[in-house]
């Protein structure tokens, strides 16, 4: 499969190719949309049933009160991480290869966090009381327990969503202005509103660059903070298998790992269907694959440290929990996780595999499966085999929670499919910055 373009695109090519992605969609697009919408409708139906008949529909039994909902919540929060890493951290590191993929990654971040945000509500059962988590002055002087990591989560995730959204919108402004100038009618009015009066003057560019750098610097600590806080939901508890100092960096690395896999899963079809091979080149795939490989190796290091700590600690319960996970009811999930997260990405040591779209796609899907199961293995088997035998309990998924989890994927893809037809999924401005500027004498331009 050869995906390499023959020449370097010009500025006019960039305008044409990126704006082409916004043209009215064809049958294939609507077919995909319909499938995704149907799955989502199924998920909503299950949710409605859960609200109507109660949380027992989700198979919740003591001690398995977190089960699939919190597993999927952590999974989606993790997916969001790569977007911030690509858009902010790689921007600060002047990694120019990010220009072709960062817009899609940023959109992915926001949609992933929006999807994750649904799960605490679904999990709470009576989601109309979700505002209890927020500290607001009330008649009974009741405040949430600020010492609970669950409340830290509320602040960490809402901050993350706010900064990511602002950063995303700021990055879009010049491109939306280009869309405004190229469109007519109601579209033009909407784009004009979103372009915030952008004219592309020197003064505006100067302020824009400064603001963009500032937001990148603000967003960077969030890459560490958000998933660290999520990890502390577990690590602060004394449950065997949860109470570990490793958890914060271990979660952050896993989040970046799964986030990059999701970027690959989104970007590769985009490149194929929109013919964006001139912009998402082999070097981009190579860089993404390398990052997946590095984060996989770091994750393997953390898995080994986790096993080492359980054995070294001499703690009977830690050792028993580890032994139970490795050999009993959910052992298949643990070994599947090790295969997907530690073994499968090793193929990226081979240079050809790093630029082969099918290989990258398959490995990325495996990584996503592995990372979902990582969260499952942290939550379900740890709770299944706690300190006392009378608290032990196996979790069996029900159609309701499984349906809602599958529905969440449909919700995420629905948002993303909508996005690629409403907004430029490549940054017109930044892609042009990586190209030689147009010259009257084309031979001159070729030297740049």
């Amino acid at each position, binding site marked *: 499969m050869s995906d390499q373009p023959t020449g370097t695109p010009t500025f006019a090519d960039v305008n044409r190719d990126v704006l082409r992605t916004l043209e009215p969609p064809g049958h294939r697009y609507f077919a995909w949309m319909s499938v995704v919408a149907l799955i989502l409708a199924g998920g909503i139906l299950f949710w409605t049933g859960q609200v109507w008949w109660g949380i027992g529909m989700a198979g919740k039994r003591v001690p398995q009160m977190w089960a699939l909902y919190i597993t999927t919540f952590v999974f989606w929060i993790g997916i969001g991480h790569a977007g911030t890493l690509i858009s902010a951290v790689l921007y600060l590191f002047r990694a120019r290869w990010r220009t072709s993929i960062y817009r899609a990654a940023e959109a992915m971040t926001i949609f992933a966090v929006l999807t994750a945000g649904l799960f605490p509500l679904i999990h709470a059962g009576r989601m109309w009381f979700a505002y209890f988590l927020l500290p607001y002055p009330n008649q009974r002087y009741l405040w949430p327990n600020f010492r609970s990591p669950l409340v830290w989560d509320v602040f960490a995730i809402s901050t993350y969503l706010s900064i990511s959204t602002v950063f995303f919108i700021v990055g879009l402004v010049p491109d939306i202005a280009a869309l405004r100038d190229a469109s007519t009618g109601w579209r033009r009015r909407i784009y004009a509103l979103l372009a915030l009066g952008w004219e592309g003057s020197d003064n505006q560019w100067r302020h824009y660059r400064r603001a963009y750098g500032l937001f990148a610097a603000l967003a960077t600590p969030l890459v560490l903070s958000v998933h660290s806080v999520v990890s502390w939901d577990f690590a*602060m508890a004394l449950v065997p298998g949860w109470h*570990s100092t*490793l958890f914060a960096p271990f979660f952050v690395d896993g989040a970046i790992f799964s986030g990059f896999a999701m970027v690959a899963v989104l970007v590769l079809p985009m490149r194929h269907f929109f013919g964006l091979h001139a912009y998402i080149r082999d070097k981009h795939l190579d860089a993404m694959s390398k990052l997946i490989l590095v984060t996989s190796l770091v994750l393997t290091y953390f898995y080994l440290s986790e096993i080492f700590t359980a054995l070294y600690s001499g703690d009977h319960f830690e050792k028993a929990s580890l032994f139970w996970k490795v050999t009993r009811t959910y052992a298949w999930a643990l070994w599947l996780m090790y295969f997907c997260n530690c073994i499968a990405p090793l193929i990226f040591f081979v240079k050809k595999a790093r630029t082969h779209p099918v290989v990258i796609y398959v490995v990325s899907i495996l990584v996503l499966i592995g990372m979902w199961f990582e969260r499952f293995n942290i939550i379900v088997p740890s709770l299944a085999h706690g300190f006392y035998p009378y608290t032990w309990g196996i979790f069996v998924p029900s159609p309701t929670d499984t349906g809602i989890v599958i529905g969440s994927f449909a919700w995420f893809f629905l948002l993303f499919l909508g996005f690629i037809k409403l907004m430029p999924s490549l940054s017109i401005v930044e892609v042009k910055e990586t190209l030689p500027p147009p010259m009257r004498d084309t031979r001159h331009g070729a030297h740049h």
Partner: protein
Amino acid sequence: MTLVWTLVAAIGAVTFAVGLASEDAAHVWAIYLVNVVFWSGLAATGPAIAAMMQLTEARWSPGVRRIALTTSGFLPVSFVLLAVLYAGRAALYHWETAPVPAKAAWLNTPFFWLRTLGGAALLFGVCLAFVSALLRDTVPPDDPGVRRRRNRLAVVLLMLWVVVVSLWGFDLVMSIDPTWYSGLFGGYFVVSTLYTTFCLLAILTVRANARGQASIPPAAIQDVAKLQFALAVMWMYFFWSQYLVIWYGNVPVETRFFVQRFFVQPWNAVAWVVFTVGWLIPFVYLLKRLTGRPPRRHTPLVVVALFGLFAIFLERVFVVFPAVSGDLGLPVGASDVLITAGFLALFILSRRWFFSRYRPVLNLPHTGQH
């Protein structure tokens, strides 16, 4: 100057030998261990940084990469010093004399020293092979085969470096108190060692420029400062990830580590000095420096880099000393200073040996990839 440093090293060695014969042998072994892990960490991490630059195809400064390689001159010395540590095992590791049955599979004499010395031999061997490969060929290599070979060596080096330095943290330091454990301690040791090496790299880069050995542009020095800043943040993040979980969990077997250090003098004061000198001051200065145009004067950068090195050295003291014995005080006696000066002298001398043996060219052309 070589003669002076040789003399300092000799005085350090004599002080160490005399100290072992005294009643305070545990104290002498403790300061020896602190020095071994500190200087060996610097020596092995220099090539590791060069390997990272090799794999990421960092073109921003081939000169800085060469400077990073020069710490490897200490590696043969480091191996000997690690082997000498074997003689002090009874004074440092309580489990040597009073085995802990639950941990005997990991904490037993043959396996422990096999890991320590075998791991070091393997890592140092690969480091030296990588250094020779980088110094032997042209920059950048004309032959893609050469680049592939270098990349392969770099991958092996980095994997070994993470494993071996983590094991130094778990084995040489954490196991002094065999009942206490933290899963992240190995990773923390790797990150803090990387931070010190970036501090050292900043100092060596500025010094190479000042002596006319290299002409590293201000933008490349700024990049070293950025990495120093990033590692300072990572160091504190790795500390905080352990501290918060242990404090919140409030399990006695874990909290005793912090109770011994944060609630007992002089260690409480040392903790604040490490935090202020090693993190707060560098963080504030580097944050200010990185938000502006790259400055031409680098004295403040060298000062905060020295702060970073000093603070991590003190942090190693802070971790090792109370674990060896609750009675050990701060190592501020003449013998402590002389032994530490001896290590410094050995490090400087071995770097000089490296320059005379390999004659590395530091003044490499910059491609301007900024």
